[in-house]
């Protein structure tokens, strides 16, 4: 054997190691591939050897080659072999290789389950760590299922190093095996309060990532989040908060505002304003109302010299508008538009104005004339890219608001007439899109035109030929419509047929210009229409009445189509949507701008009028073609942007339609009408009007809204326009967008069905059902636990317990940053929750301070937590110093912690705190339970925790801290407990009731360590005491002595309770069910604040507050065997009465006795 080993070592000396391989590759630059292939052959030989060192070396080299792009999956089995080496060195190599090249479809992964489980429970923390790291990279659903329990156990490991990794990997486990989420969540939640900041941040990381995807399931964590949030003051925290909050979008305004206020007060950093605004703006969309009081503040931000801040403030304004203030806000914005420098900001302003006005189906617009004027004013903007946006708004409003058409047409006619102003400037290429809308509106609704002839003339000016092709096309087409209108107008008076003929002549004169257009679309339309007009002219000369027939060309009403309409058309049977109909158009990204921009109604273009089915593919294809042609045209047309000196302002017709100038205005004349811009007049009008008819206005609006929403009168309304009384405050019929008749009612088609987080949308607040308490595991698993419970549970490290760090005492800078980043995440989720809670609660006045936020949390606990925390820390600190004095303390009532709910007191896994009675209230700490009052030379035994096993209703885990107080070395400790009928210590298989369990570590002087013991308990309704002994050997330099210690273990009924959150409705159902038996208790002379009292019950007795109203609170807890325990706690004048109900009266009685004891001790 020895020879073999030696041989192995010698072999190894001659093997190439990783460095040699790398060197070799570098030396064979010219024939690298060949060299590597010989290396791989060598590696294959090495892998065939028995020596694990050689194998590990080979695997290490393979890992390197994998990085260079070589497939090494053939060595998967060898990797597993190396992973299962007992040596850390090789194990690490194995796991690294596995993490690099294993994935879900690697079949050898199934072989690793047991090895990984063994490593997870290894006494060496680094074996465990390496296994966790590796597993995190290749965890499969099977592995997740089989190992979930083991990993969950590791979350309570004594080493923060392991806890941290275990917590983090749980996220992966949840994703692969969603069933584990509910059982594991309580423990994960506990880790939010872990004493180690690394563990804490890992827990925050995981919970936040979960909550980010399914926020509503994490509502119950709000108080805890709040506590964590208040304990962080780092700038990074705030950045992250704001970032995450802004991602969330579902957070209440008021809360967010308060948060941002808190942020501001905490850090007076100016740039945070930016982040704050950014966050708010995204969120406020959902809660527009409550932020209106901040309007002035936000409007102020518009004046900020920092453009970024101004842009953010704009975003915010969106959420602030109402019917009342819309005009005012937009007026202010228009002022900013005027003085704004820089096109980005101005474009942003423009978009915002439009966004604000058009939001929620024009919900806030009471006067559409005003809106049209605003749009017209916006066309004055220089160099904006958003002409198409304005255009689509004009079209949308004109089509959908029938009452406004006449006004819109008059305005558009003015625009057309002054088209040269829009197109004149080279900078203004974007804005000429407006003409597209103007021409179309004038043509389509030409019956409203005062002077169609003049408009027709304006549309056929030679200058039009310099416009982009798609606009020209619209011009030509609509000229034809106007022509029809003119004809119809003329034929009433046949005497004056000259006008009609003049019109024909005008078209015949002007159209040839368009027939020569290089744009196919324009050319085609122009020549068609030209021929048509020529024909009409012939008929006219024969005095044939043609008006009616020409008008018939353009008959019919256009309806707006909802943006999703196309998507909602049910797929006809037998149609394969995935098959190409045509080859994909090369420039398919060239979405029609007008459509893309707003996501508003898709308008059927006027061309489609000729064909009967309006929204067919033919049209769509045609459009696409045109789009491409137009694109090409825009790119090639040297005239597309034509420079000409012109005045900056567009003519504002403040007076009315009658004054539309027919002749081209001399450019030297200033075009701007002095005085108020048009929209301002509307603002003024509106104010007056509001003064006047405050009373009936409301009625009208309601009516209007109703109509707008339901679209009942969508088509019925095409009757005489006189019905639509165009008063300053329009009664407006907003036409609902059309949907296909058999549209599929699916609104959530945006969601990705492949999102793994869907499976994690699990209600975490619902108490665990019996069947869920245990993670489903493979059948052999329970046996394994029984076989070696100690190995599973015990910790063998002799290293000193990590010094407890509170967040406030000792923070490393790096860590701080990261921890805080995660606090931020928490905070953001907290915000979500609070807002949800607030939404459920009756409307309260908007709180704007941190304490206000606490008040909005589902219960009062955050406040307590806040109060409690400093005390807690101080007590624990001092307790450490005083520990020695406490040695003599006899067995006292045991306290436990377990799964405490969001009451959030303390660091549960820190076992060495002792309570100091003189500390100010309320001190939430576990008085330790010293098992051994042994003089000087003995290990001090201290029960830090007795807790029910979450997954097994008949198990209780007892954690015991062994601390060596003497100067000698202590070894061979054996722990034994005299079993009672009810409770038994779980021992190894085959061990008799008198065999003790070996404590798996030795204790050098002054060292402490923790071990856990599992007891199986039959009956949990009674408290019980177990006698036990600890035998050990004290080894001094010259001698060793056998020592023995007797102790008692006290299992209270409380230790069988598990903090379980409960919703109030579930709670009341429980009470109503009548299965519970009552019992009550009165405590006199309790002079602590009520919330302290509640916190105390929560902390010491594992209850959670269900609901609290003034001085009355309902609380809930659950035993490991599923008994419900409900408390109703009331206080009045130092008297606390507790009415309790439980399905097990004996258990209840004992719990109440214990509660009484707790309060008698304080």
């Amino acid at each position, binding site marked *: *054997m*020895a020879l073999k*080993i030696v041989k192995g070592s010698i072999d190894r000396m001659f093997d190439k190691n*990783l*460095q040699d391989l*790398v060197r070799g590759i*570098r030396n064979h630059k010219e024939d690298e591939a060949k060299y590597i292939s010989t290396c791989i052959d060598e590696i294959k030989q090495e892998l065939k050897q028995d020596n694990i*060192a050689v194998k590990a070396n080979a695997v*290490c080299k393979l*890992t390197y080659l994998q*990085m260079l*792009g*070589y*497939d090494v999956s053939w060595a998967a089995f060898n990797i597993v072999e190396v992973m299962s*080496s*007992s*040596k*850390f*060195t090789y194990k690490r190599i194995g796991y*690294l290789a596995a993490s*690099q090249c294993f*994935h*879900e479809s690697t079949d050898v992964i199934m072989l690793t389950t047991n090895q990984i489980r063994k490593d997870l429970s290894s006494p*060496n923390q*680094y074996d465990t760590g*390496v296994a*966790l*790291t590796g597993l*995190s*990279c290749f*965890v499969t659903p099977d592995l997740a299922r089989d190992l979930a329990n083991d990993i969950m156990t590791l979350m309570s490991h004594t080493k923060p190093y392991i806890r941290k*990794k275990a917590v*983090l*990997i749980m*996220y*992966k486990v949840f*994703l692969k095996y969603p069933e584990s989420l509910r059982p594991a969540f309580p423990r994960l939640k506990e880790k939010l309060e872990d004493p180690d900041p*690394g563990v804490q941040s*890992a827990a925050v*990381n995981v919970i936040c*990532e979960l909550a980010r995807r399914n926020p509503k399931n994490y509502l119950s964590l709000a108080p805890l989040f709040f506590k964590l949030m208040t304990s962080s003051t780092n700038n*990074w925290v705030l*950045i992250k908060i704001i*970032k995450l909050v802004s*991602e969330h979008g579902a957070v209440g305004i008021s809360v967010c505002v308060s948060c941002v206020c808190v942020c501001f007060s905490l850090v007076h950093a100016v740039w945070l304003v930016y982040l704050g605004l950014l966050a708010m703006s995204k969120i406020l969309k959902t809660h527009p109302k409550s932020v209106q009081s901040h309007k002035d503040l936000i409007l102020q931000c518009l004046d900020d010299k920092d453009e970024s801040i101004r842009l953010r403030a704009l975003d915010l304004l969106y959420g602030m508008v109402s019917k009342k203030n819309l005009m005012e806000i937009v007026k202010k914005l228009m002022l900013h538009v005027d003085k704004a420098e820089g096109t980005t900001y101005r474009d942003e302003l423009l978009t915002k104005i439009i966004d604000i006005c058009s939001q929620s189906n024009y919900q806030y617009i009471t006067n559409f004339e005003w809106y049209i004027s605003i749009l017209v004013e916006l066309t004055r903007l220089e160099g904006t890219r958003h002409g198409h946006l304005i255009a689509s708004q004009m079209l949308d409003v004109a089509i959908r608001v029938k009452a406004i058409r006449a006004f819109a047409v008059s305005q558009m006619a003015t625009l057309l007439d002054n088209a040269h102003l829009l197109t004149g400037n080279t900078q203004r290429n974007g804005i000429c899109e407006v003409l597209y809308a103007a021409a179309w509106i004038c043509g389509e609704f030409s019956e409203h035109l005062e002077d169609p002839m003049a408009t027709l003339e304006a549309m056929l000016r030679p200058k039009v030929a310099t416009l982009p092709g798609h606009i020209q096309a619209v011009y030509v087409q609509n000229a034809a419509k106007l022509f029809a209108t003119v004809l119809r107008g003329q034929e009433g008076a046949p005497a004056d047929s000259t006008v009609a003929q003049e019109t024909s002549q005008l078209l015949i004169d002007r159209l040839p210009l368009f027939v020569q257009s290089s744009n196919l679309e324009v050319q085609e339309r122009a020549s068609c229409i030209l021929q048509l007009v020529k024909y009409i002219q012939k008929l006219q000369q024969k005095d044939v009445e043609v008006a009616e027939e020409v008008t018939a060309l353009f008959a019919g009403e256009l309806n707006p189509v909802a943006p999703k309409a*196309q998507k909602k058309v049910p797929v006809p049977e037998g149609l394969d949507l*995935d098959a*190409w*109909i045509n080859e*994909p158009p090369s420039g398919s990204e060239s979405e029609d701008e007008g459509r893309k921009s707003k996501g508003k109604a898709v308008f059927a273009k006027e061309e489609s009028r000729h064909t009967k089915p309006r929204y067919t*593919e033919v049209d*769509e294809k045609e459009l*696409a073609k045109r789009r491409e042609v137009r694109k090409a045209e825009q790119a090639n047309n040297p005239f597309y942007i034509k420079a000409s000196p012109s005045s900056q302002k567009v003519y504002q017709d403040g007076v009315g339609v009658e004054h539309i100038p027919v002749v081209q205005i001399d450019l030297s004349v200033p075009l701007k009408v002095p005085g108020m811009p048009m929209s301002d007049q509307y603002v003024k009008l509106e104010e007056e009007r509001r003064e006047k008819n405050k009373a009936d206005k409301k009625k009208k609006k309601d009516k209007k809204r109703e109509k707008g929403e339901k679209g009942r009168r969508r088509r019925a309304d095409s009757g005489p326009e006189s019905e639509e009384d165009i008063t300053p405050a329009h009664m407006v019929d907003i036409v609902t967008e059309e949907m296909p008749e058999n549209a599929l009612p699916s609104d959530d088609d945006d969601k990705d069905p492949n999102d793994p*987080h869907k499976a994690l949308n699990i209600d975490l607040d619902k108490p665990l059902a019996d069947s869920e308490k245990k993670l489903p595991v493979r059948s052999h698993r329970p046996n394994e636990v029984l076989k070696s419970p100690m190995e599973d549970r015990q910790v063998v490290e002799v290293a000193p317990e990590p010094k407890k760090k509170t967040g406030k005492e000792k923070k*490393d800078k*790096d*860590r701080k*940053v*990261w921890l805080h*980043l995660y606090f931020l995440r928490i905070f953001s989720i907290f915000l979500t929750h609070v807002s949800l809670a607030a939404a459920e609660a009756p409307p309260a006045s908007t709180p704007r301070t941190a304490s206000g936020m606490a008040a909005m949390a589902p219960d009062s606990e955050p406040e307590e937590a806040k109060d409690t925390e400093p005390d807690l820390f101080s007590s624990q600190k001092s307790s450490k110093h005083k520990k020695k004095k406490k040695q003599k303390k006899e067995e006292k009532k045991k306290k436990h912690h377990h799964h405490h709910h969001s009451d959030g007191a303390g660091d549960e896994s820190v076992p060495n705190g002792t309570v100091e009675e003189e500390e100010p209230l309320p001190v939430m700490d576990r008085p330790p339970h010293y098992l051994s009052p042994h003089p000087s030379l003995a290990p001090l035994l201290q029960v830090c925790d007795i807790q029910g096993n979450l997954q097994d209703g008949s198990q209780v885990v007892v954690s015991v801290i062994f601390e060596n107080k003497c100067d000698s070395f202590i070894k061979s400790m054996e722990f034994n407990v005299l079993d009672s009928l009810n409770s038994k210590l779980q021992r190894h298989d085959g061990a008799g009731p008198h065999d003790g369990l070996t404590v798996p570590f030795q204790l050098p002087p002054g060292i402490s360590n923790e071990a856990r013991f599992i007891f199986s308990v039959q009956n949990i309704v009674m408290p019980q005491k177990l006698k036990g002994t600890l035998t050990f050997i004290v080894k001094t330099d010259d001698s060793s002595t056998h020592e023995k210690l007797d102790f008692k273990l006290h299992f209270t009924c409380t230790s069988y309770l598990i903090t379980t959150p409960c919703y109030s409705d579930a709670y009341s159902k429980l009470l109503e069910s009548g299965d519970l038996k009552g019992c009550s208790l009165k405590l006199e002379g309790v002079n602590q604040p009520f919330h302290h009292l509640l916190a105390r019950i929560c902390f010491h007795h594992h209850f959670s507050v269900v609901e609290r109203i003034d001085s009355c609170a309902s609380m809930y807890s659950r035993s490991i065997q599923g008994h419900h325990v409900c408390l109703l706690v009331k206080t009045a004048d130092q008297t606390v009465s507790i009415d309790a109900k439980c399905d097990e009266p004996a258990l209840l009685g004992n719990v109440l006795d214990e509660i009484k004891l707790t309060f008698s001790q304080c």
Partner: protein
Amino acid sequence: MARVETCGSRLLRRLRFPIDQSIMIKAILIFNNHGKPRLSKFYEHYNEDTEQQIIRETFHLVSKRDENVCNFLEGGMLIGGSENRLIYRHYATLYFVFCVDSSESELGILDLIQVFVETLDKCFENVCELDLIFHVDKVHNILAEMVMGGMVLETNMNEIIIQVDAQNKMEKSETFIFQSPRQDR
């Protein structure tokens, strides 16, 4: 037209590589100024060829950027496109690139890269490219203490170094045991 577009986007979706949305850090790459990989750690699975393509693509994206522009850019098409971002730093001859999803804070990751490099510097004593070339396994071990399964595990350099050292010490003690006549398994 609309229908044609729908088909196109569906096809596109099918063509795209599967993106594991659960992972926050998708990949960590170190390559030199010539694009030679010095370390690659993918937290979602790709086959070896794709990995090499991603490295090349990332190198191409990152290397053409000026020194004085910001350290963030959108991810390449192979690794999720605009849904992911590349956050990188350029140290002497090496690029350190983290490909992350939108939930990670850019500044946080930038900081993490700094911690990573400082940790390497401590562990290798004045780290240079050669250290990474010859000891890629050690670099992996250090990285494993910082990032686990695509999630940030630890950012405190001291803590990382303590754990790395402790493990190296264990490795050394095992080497010693190995030379003494005791069996490995």
